[in-house]
C-alpha cells in the first residue's frame, strides 16, 4: 500500500511500543481516544476507542487474528474495517495508520473532520 504522506500524518510510537498481540491507547488533547492495535503478524490498525455496542474501550480487548473482542460484552470487531462480526451489527470508526520502518504514523485529521459528533459520554 502506498500512502501519500502529508503533514497530517503524525508519528505516535514505534512498533515495539505496542504489546503483541495487543493495543495501546492514544490520548488526544481534544477528541476521543484512539486504540492502536498490533496483531501477532505485526500488522497495525487503529480505531476510535469505542465499541459500536455500548461504547466499551476496544483498546482493552483481546486481540486475535485481525479482530478484537470488546471487553464489556464480547462483541468482535474487525480491525481492518471496524465492523462488528455477524450477527452483530455496528461499526467502530477507522483511523488511517501507516508504518515506515518500525515507526507508526496516524492520520488524525481524517477523523477530526468526521468525528466531531463523537464525544466522550
Amino acid at each position: 500500500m502506498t500512502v501519500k504522506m502529508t503533514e497530517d500524518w503524525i508519528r505516535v510510537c514505534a512498533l515495539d511500543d505496542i504489546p503483541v498481540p495487543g493495543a495501546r491507547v492514544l490520548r488526544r488533547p481534544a477528541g476521543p481516544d484512539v486504540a492502536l492495535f498490533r496483531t501477532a503478524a505485526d500488522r497495525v490498525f487503529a480505531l476510535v476507542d469505542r465499541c459500536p455496542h455500548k461504547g466499551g474501550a476496544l483498546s482493552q480487548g483481546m486481540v486475535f487474528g485481525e479482530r478484537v473482542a470488546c471487553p464489556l460484552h464480547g462483541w468482535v470487531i474487525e480491525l481492518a474495517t471496524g465492523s462488528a462480526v455477524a450477527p452483530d451489527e455496528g461499526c467502530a470508526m477507522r483511523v488511517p495508520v501507516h508504518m515506515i520502518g518500525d515507526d507508526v504514523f496516524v492520520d488524525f485529521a481524517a477523523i477530526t473532520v468526521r468525528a466531531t459528533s463523537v464525544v466522550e459520554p
Partner: protein
Amino acid sequence: MRRPKLVLVGNGMAGVRTLEELLKIAPELYDITVFGAEPHPNYNRILLSPVLAGEQMLDDIVLNSYDWYRSRGITLHAGRAITRIDRARHRVETNDGTFAEYDRLLLATGSTPVMLPIPGADLGGVLTYRDIADTHAMLDASRQSRRAAVIGGGLLGLEAANGLKARGMDVTVVHLAPWLMERQLDQTAGRLLQRSLEARGIVFLLERQTTEFIAGDDGRISAVRLQDGSTVPAGLVVLAVGIRPNTALAEAAGLHCNRGIVVSDTLQTFDPRIYAVGECVSHRGVAYGLVAPLFEMAKVCANHLARLGIGRYAGSVTSAKLKVTGVELFSAGDHIGAAGTDSIVLSDPVGGVYKKLVLRDNRLVGACLYGDTVDSAWYFRLLRDGRDVAPERDRLMFGEANLGDAGHLGQNRAAAMSDDMEVCGCNGVCKGAIVKAIEEKGLFTIEDVRRHTKASSSCGSCTGLVEQILMLTLGGDYSVAPKQKPVCGCTERTHAEVRQAIREHHLLTIAEAMHFLEWRTPNGCAACRPALNYYLLSTWPKEARDDPQSRFVNERAHANIQKDSTFSVVPRIWGGVTSADELRRIADVVDKYRIPSVKITGGQRIDLLGAKKEDLPAIWRDLGMPSGHAYAKALRTVKTCVGSEWCRFGTQDSTRMGQALERALWRMYAPHKVKLAVSGCPRNCAEAGIKDVGVIGVESGWEIHVAGNGGTKTAVAQFLAKVATHDEVLEYAGAFLQLYREEGWYLERTVHFVERVGLDYVKKRVVDDADGRRALWERLRFALDGEADPWHEPQRAAVDARQFEPIATEA
C-alpha cells in the same frame, strides 16, 4: 488454479447443511454444483406440517434463498433430477442431457415414502406426504373433497391428519398397530394421544389393514376398503406408512447399499470419492429419519471434505416430538423398557399427564412424556450423556426445575410463557424474539440461538429455558448440543482432549499447543486463548510462562473493568479482618485519587470503584495491601464469622481458620473464580453452604462442604468430609481445589465440575486416598510457592506497565 469440483445430488436439508459447514471451514476449496429434483431452493421439510395446518406459509420455511447459492458461487440446478452416476468418468447426468463432472460427489438423496402394494394405489387423490408438491396436492384436494383418510398412525400420518382437520376436512386415520405411534410411545401414552386427537374430531380405526383403494365415477379415489370388508369414504388418501432410504441412484451405480447407502464413520461410501449424508444412508446398520442426526453427519462429512480429517460420526440418539399444536409429546431411547431395565412412572390420565422414565443400572436409557414435556431437553441430555443418576433418582421425575436457576423470575416453563416474557435476564431477550429468530433464521442449536439473539450467552442460567423453546419450536428436529463440545470454533478438540494433550506431550506454550492440536486459526480467539493459557499454567507450574495478552483485560490490568472503562480495586483483607491503619490508607487513597464510589462487598472486603487505569499502579502502592484478585479466575475471598474468639455460641476459631486458608491459597488461579467461607458453629453465619469450599466448625472438629454456589445457579454445597484439625482442613480443602484445578474445564465452576465427575469420584480422590490427597495438596503448594503479587511485584508477575501509560499525541 483449477479448483476441485464438488457435486451435491439432493438439494435438501442434509446436503445443504453439509455445504454450509464446509463453507464455514473451507470457503474457497471447491467449485460447487447442486442438483435438486424439486424446483425449489433448500427448505425446511419439517415445517411442512405447520404449512399444511395453515400456521405457516411456504415462504417462511425456505432455509437458503436463491441468493444464498448465488452469492457463494454455487451453481444450482433446481428441478433437475440426476438419473445416473458415471463412476468411471466421474460425472453425474440428468435425463435432459445435463451433466456435471466431479472430483468429490456428495449424495443426499433422502428417502421416499413407502407405497402400499394394493389395488388402486395409483389412483388420483392417493398421495404421499414428503415434499412441497405433496403438500400442494393435499391442499388442493382438501378444497375439492370433504373426507380424507390417512393410512398410518405414526408421526407423519398424525401430523397430516391434524393438518387436514385444521383445513376443515373429516379425517379418518387407519392404523395397523393396536395404538398410535407404537414405535415412539407405549400403550398408555398412545391412548392418551388418541383421546386428545379424537377430541379434535379425528376418527381412528386401529388394528385395521387396508386392502384396496376404490375408484369413484370420476376415476379418482372415492373410498378405502379394509380387510374386514368395511369401507371408509374418502376423496383424498394420504399414505404415511413409512419411509425408505432413496438408494436407487446409488444402487444403479454399483455402490454398496443395504437399506441405505452404506457409509463409514467418515460418511464415505464404498467409492472413496463419493460421500453420502442424510436419510439415504445406512450407518452402522441404522438409517435415520430425523434431522438432528443429519446435522451431526453434515459436520463430520464437511470436515473430511475440507481435508481436515478430524472427527468421526459415531451414530446418534434420537428423539421424537409431535408437531401438532396443543399436543405435548416426547419420546426418546428405549421407552418401552427391555429386560434389565426398570421404569419410574407418573400417570394421571384424567389430568392428561403421563411420564415414563426407563433406567438401566441407574442410567436413563429411555423417556416417554405425554402432556408435560417441559423437561424433555433435560432428560434427553441425561440420556445422551449416560450419566449415573443415582444421586437424584428420587427427584428425577420432577424435572430440572428444582435445581435452582436465577434471573428469569423463577419462570421455567417455556410453553406457558407469552411471547413478551423475558427469557434471558442478562441480555433482555424475550421469548418472542427467540422464536422469531429460530423460525426466520433457521436456527437449530443452542449455539445458533446464542449467536443470533444473545439469549443464554452471558450467565447461562436460562440455557434450559432456551433449549425448551428450541424444542417447542422445532419439535423432534431440535439438535441437542453434542456431549463432547469443542473448546471453540477454532478447533474440533474438546476441553478434555486439550488438557490431555498438554499433559501427555508436555506442551508449554500456546503456540506449541495450537500447532500440536492443529488449531484452525493462526492465534485462536477470545474464548480459547485464556483457556489454553490456564491449562498450560496449571499443568506445568514453574515451567509454562504466563501470556498476559491471552488473558481477559481484568487479569491483564489486575483490576475489574467497569461499564465506563474505569476500573475497580479490591485489596485483600485476610478473612475479612482489617485495622484502623488499613482503613486510614484506604480513605487516603479514595481522597487522593478521587475515587467516586466506595462499597462494602459481599465477600467482606472494600471495593473502590471508578479508578482510572493510569492511576492503578500508584493506588496499589499507596494502599500497601495485597491484591484481592477480585478480578481473576482465582481465589477470591474467604468469608468468616467472628467465631469462638468473641461469639458466645462459637465452637471453633473460624476467623483464624479462614485467614490460614486465605494465606495458603491466595494467588491460586483456577478454571473459574473460587470462594470460600468458614463458620465457627452450625449456625453458619458465614454462609458456608453456598461456597466452592465451605468449612463449618463443630464441637469435635470441622465439616468440609464443597461445590456450593451462590451465583447464577444457587446450589447447596455437598458434604465431603469431617476432620479434626486445622492442618487437615487445609489439606482436604487444598486437595479438592487442586483436583479442580487439574481436571476442571476452563470457566467451569466447582458446582459444574462436581456435577460432571460425580461427588463419589471426588471423595475417592480426596477422602479415601490419603497418599493421593497429600500429593494433590503438595502439588498445589508447589504451584503457589513464591508466586508474585501483581500489585507489588509487577515485573515478576509479568504485568505489562505500558498499558497504564496512554501515548499522548498532539492532534
